[in-house]
């Protein structure tokens, strides 16, 4: 029948070992996690792309997209109704329809989307109009130093310096993965900047203003660095 333990308080301190073990596991994961994730991603990408159930998106397997919105639900905008305004300290302000943008020369390349908090999605095929081309068409005035992007979510805005905005890997993106940019990814038109953290790549792009200053944007007001170049 029932046996008596030798007093519950005399046993081995297994609980403490479990806590220390988990802390050790966590520390190893922080240092090695990026490589482990990379490996998992390569193994799982073919499965996830063909997963009709969507179940794999519930589990943090591999490098998955995280979708951010800083306001309430954003109303989708049809490509037919889409307009991009380029204005500010420029010689020639302009209004582009989606068809106008699609008719301009398209730059295509594959690059990582890197969030400042750490998550990233490698090898994303991007395509769109180089921002440098739109800026050349607009003709910034001599005292222009910055570019401000605003989203049609009504809240989001972020700056780049005029020099950063002219980089080859900054595009007004019309397509991702060879398809039009989806609403969830900030479509029909978003910014993508390959050398900068994701918060510089404005979703649901509404207007581009050339400015004589470089004011902090939405996340920069909340602590992120004004210079969003991806670091080591």
């Amino acid at each position, binding site marked *: *029948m*029932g*046996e*008596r*333990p*030798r*007093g*519950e*308080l*005399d*046993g*081995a*301190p*297994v*609980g*403490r070992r*479990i*806590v*220390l*073990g*988990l*802390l050790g*596991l*966590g520390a190893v*994961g*922080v*240092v*090695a*996690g*990026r490589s*482990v*994730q990379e490996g998992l991603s390569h193994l799982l990408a073919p499965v996830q792309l063909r997963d009709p159930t969507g179940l794999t*998106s*519930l*589990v*943090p397997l591999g490098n998955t*997209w*995280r*979708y*951010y*919105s*800083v*306001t*309430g*639900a*954003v109303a989708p905008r049809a490509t037919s109704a889409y307009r991009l305004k380029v204005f500010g300290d420029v010689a020639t302000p302009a209004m582009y329809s989606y068809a106008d943008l699609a008719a301009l020369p398209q730059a295509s390349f594959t690059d990582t989307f*890197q969030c*400042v*908090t*750490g*998550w*990233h999605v490698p090898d994303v095929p991007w395509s769109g109009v180089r921002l440098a081309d739109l800026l050349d068409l607009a003709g910034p005035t001599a005292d222009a130093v910055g570019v401000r992007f605003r989203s049609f979510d009504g809240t989001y805005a972020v700056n780049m310096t005029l020099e950063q905005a002219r980089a080859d890997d900054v595009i007004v993106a019309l397509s991702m993965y060879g398809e039009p940019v989806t609403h*969830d990814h900030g479509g029909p038109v978003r910014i993508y900047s390959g050398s900068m953290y994701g918060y510089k790549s404005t979703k649901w792009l509404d207007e581009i203003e050339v400015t004589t200053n470089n004011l902090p944007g939405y996340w920069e007001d*909340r*602590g*992120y*660095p004004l210079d969003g170049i*991806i*670091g*080591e």
Partner: protein
Amino acid sequence: MSDLVGVDRFTPAERFVHRSVAVLMGVCLVTAAILYNGSIMLAIGHRHLVELVHVWCGLALPVPMLAGALSAAYRTDVRRLNRFTPSDWRWLRSRQRRDGTIAVGKFNAGQKLNAHLVAGSTLVLLGTGAVMYWTGLVRLSWRSGATFVHDWFALGLGLLVIGHIVYALKDPEARRGMREGRVSTRWARAEHGAWVDEIDDAGSGGFEARR
């Protein structure tokens, strides 16, 4: 001893700690789901607000756990949860663990395991979360690692909490112990026999008739 009297199981201080941790943990898990899942995020939005609630509830989570140390009863129970006796290992391996053959103290081995998995995971989530929130603390590849660890530990902790709630739902008397502090002697004998024997031996106030 009468079954009407029952046994004191948790003091008001312990119940207060449990309730505070439960509320904070609940808010952390709900906000985590919003932040992690794309469909929920895009429907609800307001990421910064959700993020602030998540981060500050997470940072507050250890406060009641540590404040509990002011109570002697809480400290004793933390010590009980920490210590594994040989019969705890037998209990974990046994298929008849619930039939009362293996002596169980105030906490069974599953509760001890759960308590420390939750405590350890909470600390890991706290550390990795801080690294993700204050992006200047460590280099980018460690922030990626921290995100990886945070995701998996959050999933694990979520499952532990769901398991904890499922066991509680199946046992009204255990819930009463945490809600009102007392349990019936019959339940205590069936589930935690060695604990009842211990109280009997000590002749302590556990069974003292109140009125």
